[in-house]
Structures are given as structure tokens and as C-alpha cells.
């Protein structure tokens, strides 16, 4: 891969950067929910492309993978709940647009001023041969605590999400005293139970 950023890589990074921000703006401009979702996906993929150019292969492909799945699921929810999924009639659903714009622009300006005034430390060129191995050894070694916490957090999320989203508990499925042999589901699944 790229040991040091070549001219092509810098050009690609710049183009992808512009694309990611433009797609991010498009999310809130287009009328159609499907297009908004996929504009967001385009923004993620552009960032994944920049990460790829920065030699972070694993993080880049994992970003692409996870965000695509997220966006696909998001599209389903969008269309399930929105009044106007396909943008048949233009409509705006915003509140306090001016205040939000000022806040967003303000945050951007503050960050940019910081970015261009700080004297960034020049790095010493000791990049590892394999960034994936570096990450793997970190999360299975020195940073294992982070992974443990993440694991517990994700498990809690699975439980909490299921509890919140479903309206049927085991009493609905197996009867008030849990004696029913087969669960009473609207659609039977593929396992003999």
C-alpha cells in the first residue's frame, strides 16, 4: 500500500473529502427519504475511502461494512415511519432552522480556527508494517478492557433494544401460565417447537 502519501493519494483524499461533506449536506437537502439515507451512506463510503488511503485498511472496510448495514436498516425504518418516504411532495420538517445553522456553522468555524492555528507536532516515521495487526494486538492485549466494556455495552443494547421494540412477551406467546406447547405467533418460524 501507500508507504507515504503520493500526489495521487492526496488528490484522492481531497476529492473524497469534498464528496463526503457534499453528501452530508445532501442528506438534509433532498426530499426523498431513500435518497437522504443513501446520501449519508455515500458520505460514509467517502470517509472509508480516505481511511483506505491513510493505510487503515481494516478500519476502512469495517466502516464500509457496518455503515452499509446500518443504512440499509435505516432505509427500512425511514419508509416504515415517515409520512413522505419517496418525496412525492416536497415538504420540510425542520424546527429552529436558523439557530441550528448558526450552531453548526459556529462549531465548524471554531474547529477550523483551532485546526489551522495549532502547530501540529511533526511525527516520527515509525508506522507499523501492518496496521490491522497493530489494532488486533492492542484490543486483545493492552486495550482489552476497552473491548470488554464494548462487549458488555453491545450485549446490553441488544437486550434493551429488544425489550423496547417488541410488544409481545412470553406470556403473550405461551399463555398466562406459560403452559402452551407451541408459541402463539402470527407467523410460525422454521423450527419445530
Amino acid at each position, binding site marked *: 500500500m501507500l508507504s507515504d502519501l503520493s500526489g495521487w493519494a492526496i488528490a484522492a483524499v481531497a476529492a473524497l473529502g469534498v464528496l463526503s461533506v457534499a453528501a452530508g449536506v445532501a442528506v438534509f437537502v433532498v426530499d426523498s427519504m431513500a435518497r437522504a439515507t443513501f446520501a449519508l451512506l455515500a458520505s460514509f463510503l467517502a470517509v472509508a475511502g480516505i481511511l483506505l488511503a491513510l493505510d487503515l*485498511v*481494516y478500519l476502512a472496510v469495517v466502516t464500509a461494512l457496518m455503515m*452499509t448495514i446500518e*443504512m440499509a*436498516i435505516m432505509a427500512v425504518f425511514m419508509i416504515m415511519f415517515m409520512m413522505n418516504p419517496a418525496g412525492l411532495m416536497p415538504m420540510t420538517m425542520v424546527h429552529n432552522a436558523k439557530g441550528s445553522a448558526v450552531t453548526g456553522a459556529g462549531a465548524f468555524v471554531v474547529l477550523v480556527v483551532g485546526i489551522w492555528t495549532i502547530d501540529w507536532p511533526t511525527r516520527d516515521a515509525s508506522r507499523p508494517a*501492518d496496521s490491522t495487526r497493530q489494532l488486533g494486538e492492542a484490543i486483545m492485549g493492552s486495550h482489552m478492557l476497552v473491548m470488554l466494556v464494548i462487549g458488555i455495552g453491545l450485549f446490553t443494547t441488544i437486550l434493551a433494544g429488544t425489550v423496547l421494540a417488541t410488544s409481545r412477551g412470553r406470556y403473550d406467546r405461551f399463555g398466562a401460565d406459560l403452559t402452551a406447547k407451541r408459541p402463539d405467533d402470527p407467523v410460525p418460524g422454521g423450527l419445530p417447537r
Partner: protein
Amino acid sequence: MSEQTLAEAWGLVPAVLGIVAVGLVLGLVVAAVDRVVVSGAPRAAVEPIRSSARLLFEQRRTTLAPDRLLWRIGCVAVPTLALLSLAVVPVGGRTLWSTSADLVWFNAMEALLWAAVWLVGWGPNAVHALTGGYRFLAQGLAYELPLMFALITAGLAAGSLRATDIFATQENLWFVVTMPVAFVVFVASAAAFAFWGPFAAPAGPDIAGGVASELSGVDRLLVEAGRVVFLGASAAMAAALFLGGDSGPWLPGPLWHLLKTLAVVAALVWVGRRMPVLRPDRTVEVGWMVLVPLTLLQALVVAVLVLNGFYA
């Protein structure tokens, strides 16, 4: 790292063209075998070529108020992603480009396929197509995790996510011997992601062709080509990950890999066409309740073997 990628060995443009050609030939082979098995007549093998030529010149039909932009993007993305997934499959012992996360790359292309197929279903603004798109998402969710675990199991044994490393580790013992579950799950999920055979519910005849129901002309050609190229790429990947890649006596390595790929294709089509389309509300439960624990168990077994130095 001593290994060379195809792009370094041949130059970027010839290597890319080579991989595209390999992908198209593989797809054509899959389509031909499929036609022969379905129609029962060997001369149906030329049918894919004939119908491709016809579709190429066919006029496009359209529907009421389609989302043309997203529809086109989806149709173009399906074959593109199929070819991109081939970029990390070893061809002649080398991959088009080699990263330290080849397996994740392959998986990410499949995930992007979700979005692409969903777009193909969403674009025409039609009931059957959209139903097919949703079925594909449900199917993708149910098979994504087993597929991921199956891929990771092969990576675990080789101690690397790089396809060529996994290739090299199997010189003495094919991975399928110690990870049969992962192999079967990988091939079945590949069929599910290409929504082909028993997993064709997203394009099922019960919803009038599903995602493909409103496609015509070049669009249909692109999507159908993407499906078969993806199946061919997955068969080649299965041969590389689980069937020892290019190891074998007498013949040169690449020929062995080709033969194994063809064997996987033949077995897949032969088994897959002997059963009806499985209804998604049945298969999805099996995916979550059976395949996920089973592949996890498989990974555990392989992990214990790795700790005992079995693959070293």
C-alpha cells in the same frame, strides 16, 4: 512481505482487465451450468450468451414514477460489487490487490450488495420489487453473521485475514476437514447473497420475480450478470479458503484451483436446484437460532486447535 499482487506483477490496467475477464467467464460458467441443470438439455448451455445479447439490445421498460437515479445506481452497483469481491480472491496464486483485511473486504462487498439490491427493489416504485428488496434485507441480516463467522474461522486457523496467507497455510491439510460447518455455511450464504436457487425468495416467482420483476434490457443484464459473477467469485473463494486452493498433485496449481472452483459450482447448482425456494419466514429463524450458534461453536473448535498448534 514477499508476496506480490497481480497489480504489481502485471501492471494495474492489465491486472484489472484480467480480473474482469475471469469474473465474466466464471459468471458465464455458473449461468451455463445452471441452465443445463434447470432445463435438462446440454445444449441450453449457450442460452446465457444468447439471452445476454438479446437483453443488450432490448428497449427499457419503465414504471410509474420510478426513482430513476437510485434504480440505475443499484443496477450498476450489483455487478461492480461482484467484480470487486473478486479482487481479493486468489487467481493463479495471487490476488488483484492484497490487504491485511482481505476477508473483511470480501464481507464488506456483500454488505454493500444489500444496499444495491435494496435499491434495485426500491427504484421502480412497484409492489413486487419492493417486497423483494425487503425480503433481501431480512435474508441478508439472517445470513450476515453466520457468513462472517465462517470467514473468520478460516482466518483464525491461518492467523491472518489475508487471502494468500490462508492459501499457503493449507498446503498440508485442507481447512474443510476441520471446519466443515464453516464451509457449508459459507457456500449457502453465498447463494443467499446472490439470491439464487433455494434462497431466491427476494426474486421469487411467488412475488412475480421480486427485485427483478421490473427490470428490462441492460438493467436486467447487469443485475443477472452480477448475481452469477458473485456466485462464481464465491465458489472460487470457497475453493481458496476451504478446499486447499491450488494444492494438488501432478497438475499446475492454478488448474487445481480452477477445477475445485468448478466442482463447487457444480455441487452448488446440483444440490440447489433439487429443492424449491425456501420461504424466508422459515429460513430466517434457522439462520438466527441454528446457524449463528453452530458457526460460533465451529470457531471455538478451531480456536482450541490453533492453541494446540494444530495448524502450525
